[in-house]
């Protein structure tokens, strides 16, 4: 509790110090500022024009000198004059686009081109398949996993992103899902702004966002290597991952290698804070009814620190190591807390003779440990009494993917989760289970994929199950940049 309070206050101070700094740099009142800006703009335009004229003159001279020697070319290239300042490619409108006026039969281009105010994309992830388990919804704990025999619309994601102004970048991911009852649900998965020009290598993110805990949690389902979420993520961080409204500061450390430190402060309640102040679906948390809790101090929020470092082993191999924590109160009592610790490793080999991004090998492993302080419960007619106890769970997954030829990726994942014996037995949310999943993915292009996956599941107190899933993805709109 104490440590969390310290982190809370210090990060609040940190944030306010940053905003103060931002204010100090703008001492002028708005009107004065505007006037000054107008004057500056005017002067800049005049200067620009003068420079343009000069460089034009120079260009012409140089071209006259240079061109006499060059053999004429079929493409008839007349080098355009350099526009000196902007450094943006819209300074050179493509010839074709200029000469041909837009007609109603032309498509409206939202993505691509250089005038980028808002990127829009739509990504659909659909799965179909069969499982020997009838209770597919409890076999597959992930919120975007296949949920039933037959078809599941895993994720329909609309993404908006772009630069807001010279200070912020914004992103929103609005997702829709069709649940097994056929109802369409809409969710704001992420909607945040991120600073782009803070000093001291700092960056602040604020809004609704995925906590940077481990490697997989902040990744959207369409960029996963397999059809479903690792078991440990579903059990500890929740079906839909750990995400909530909040703010986080990250610092890009000045180490010779890449390393970054994150500190996030978020709300601690709801189903997207599963191991914290969440009543779970049936209102029972590890056999105990959820208690109504309120935020009384900074200590009642959720804190997610993370440190990650990456090293280039060779010119073609990189390894990334991370350590994360998530600390906050939970829903079983007034003074009960949860701590989750995580360690992650990501290794990638990609030769510097790659063509279209292939071949490559990646190896991704995460391990987590959860300490859940559960309050005592007196019991009632339907539910047994339970003592105050600390529930200790751990688990992890390891997956390897091999892009063996252009468009083809073979993957294999192993999952394991378990919990130390406690008052409630058996508890499907804590019992040991493991899973092995081979998968094969084919990418017809960067914008679509087809994946087939087999799951061998073994659940304590339930038994063995087999599942086959086929997944299809398509992406419309803006070309997303791949993160490492």
């Amino acid at each position, binding site marked *: 509790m104490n440590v969390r309070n310290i982190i809370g206050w210090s990060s609040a101070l940190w944030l306010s110090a940053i905003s103060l700094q931002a204010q100090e740099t703008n001492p002028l009142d708005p009107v004065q500022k505007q006037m000054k800006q107008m004057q500056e703009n005017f002067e800049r335009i005049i200067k620009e024009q003068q420079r343009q004229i000069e460089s034009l003159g120079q260009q012409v001279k140089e071209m006259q000198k240079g061109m006499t*020697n*060059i053999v004429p070319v079929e493409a008839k290239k007349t080098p355009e004059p350099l526009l000196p300042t902007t450094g943006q490619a819209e300074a050179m409108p493509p010839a074709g686009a200029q000469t041909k006026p837009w007609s109603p039969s032309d498509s409206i281009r939202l993505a691509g081109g250089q005038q980028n105010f808002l990127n829009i994309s739509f990504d659909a992830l659909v799965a179909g398949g069969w499982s020997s388990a009838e209770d597919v919804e409890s076999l597959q704990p992930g919120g975007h996993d296949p949920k039933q025999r037959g078809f599941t619309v895993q994720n329909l994601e609309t993404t908006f992103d772009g630069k807001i102004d010279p200070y912020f970048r914004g992103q929103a991911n609005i997702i829709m899902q069709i649940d097994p009852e056929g109802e369409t649900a809409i969710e704001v998965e992420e909607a945040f702004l991120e600073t782009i020009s803070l000093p001291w290598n700092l960056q602040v993110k604020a809004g609704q966002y995925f906590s940077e805990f481990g490697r997989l949690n902040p990744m959207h389902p369409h960029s996963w290597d397999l059809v479903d979420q690792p078991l440990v993520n579903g059990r500890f961080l929740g079906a839909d991952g750990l995400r909530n409204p909040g703010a986080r500061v990250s610092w890009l450390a000045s180490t010779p290698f890449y390393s970054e430190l994150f500190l996030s402060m978020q709300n601690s309640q709801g189903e997207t804070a599963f191991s914290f102040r969440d009543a779970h679906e049936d209102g029972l948390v590890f056999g105990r009814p959820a208690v109504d809790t309120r935020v009384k101090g900074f200590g009642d929020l959720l804190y997610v620190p993370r440190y990650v470092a990456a090293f280039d082993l060779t010119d073609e191999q990189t390894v990334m190591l991370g350590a994360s924590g998530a600390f906050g109160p939970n829903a079983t009592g007034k003074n009960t807390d949860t701590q989750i610790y995580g360690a992650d490793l990501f290794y990638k080999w990609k030769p510097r*003779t790659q063509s279209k991004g292939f071949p490559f090998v990646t190896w991704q492993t995460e391990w987590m440990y959860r300490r859940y302080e559960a309050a005592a419960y007196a019991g009632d007619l339907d539910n047994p009494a339970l003592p105050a106890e600390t529930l200790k769970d751990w688990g992890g997954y390891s997956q390897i993917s091999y892009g063996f030829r252009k468009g083809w990726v073979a993957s294999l994942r192993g999952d394991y989760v378990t919990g130390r014996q406690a008052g409630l037995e058996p508890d499907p949310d804590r019992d040991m289970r493991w899973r092995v999943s081979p998968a094969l993915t084919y990418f017809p292009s960067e914008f679509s994929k087809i994946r087939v996956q087999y799951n061998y599941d073994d659940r304590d107190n339930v038994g063995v199950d087999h599942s086959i899933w086929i997944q299809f993805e398509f992406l419309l709109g803006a070309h997303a940049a*791949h993160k490492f």
Partner: protein
Amino acid sequence: MKTLFSLIGLAALLGAASPAQAKLNVVATLPDYGSIAEEIGGDKIKVTSLAKGTEDPHFVDARPSFIRVLNQADVLLEGGAEMEIGWLPALVNNARNPKLLGAAPGHVVMAQGITLLDVPSGPVDRSMGDVHPAGNPHFAHDPANGKIMAAHLAEVFGRLDAANAAFYQANLKRFNERLDLKLVEWAKLMEPYRGTKVVTYHKSYEYFAARFGLKVIGQIEPKPGLEPSPTHISALITRMKEAGAKLVMIEPNRPRKTPQYVADAIGAKLVIVPGMVGGQEKIKDYFSLFDYDVAQIMAALKELK
């Protein structure tokens, strides 16, 4: 928790130890831009190229170490025209370096001032493959465009480092004089082969071909970015036989099997023509790129005769 604080402490310590840079720190996405920057900047700048000359410039891995490199940079040279769209934006977003953003003088788009080829004049959609709406981004493979890029860089370096502006201008003059001589030399060498019909793997030789009078009449790829299919290859072979294609030009990193098969089937010669500086050991700079490529093509065509 203790570990967390000691990590903060450690990182802060390391942060304080990093020395100030006196030279202009220039980061180029592709080695071609880096090579021209070295010609103009000489010993007054430090150049780092992110991509290797041997790899596919569209699919460079966004390695985390690049974030640190970009964080320290004074100048970023990017091609623009969607060349690096798949890997650069996320790196720049996380680099937290306002010097490289938007209209900042340190953000240099190399395509600026260059007339791009293959700008689609009709409607574009993705059923046509990965068509770049702004035009073909492989413009650095025309040496005459090197002059435009060099002038741009001399101007940018001079603005960011006014004390050495004259030095950069002098280097630009020397670069242009040398390139003018080379342009004449290469043109003379290629003159006898003007009009030679060639097949390429990707639409990446359009600029080189236009400069040296080669006619690109087909691609191994059925559509930009797509892998060759058997139907496309058999149709291509028929067409290329009829047209009389003499060369199949591919980059060093492309799969050899299909291009070799096509070359054999149409009685043409398969030739490896690196598209970037560093694409082959001998290609140390922008000049040797064209020296090497021209020599490769001439050798292959001589063998055919």
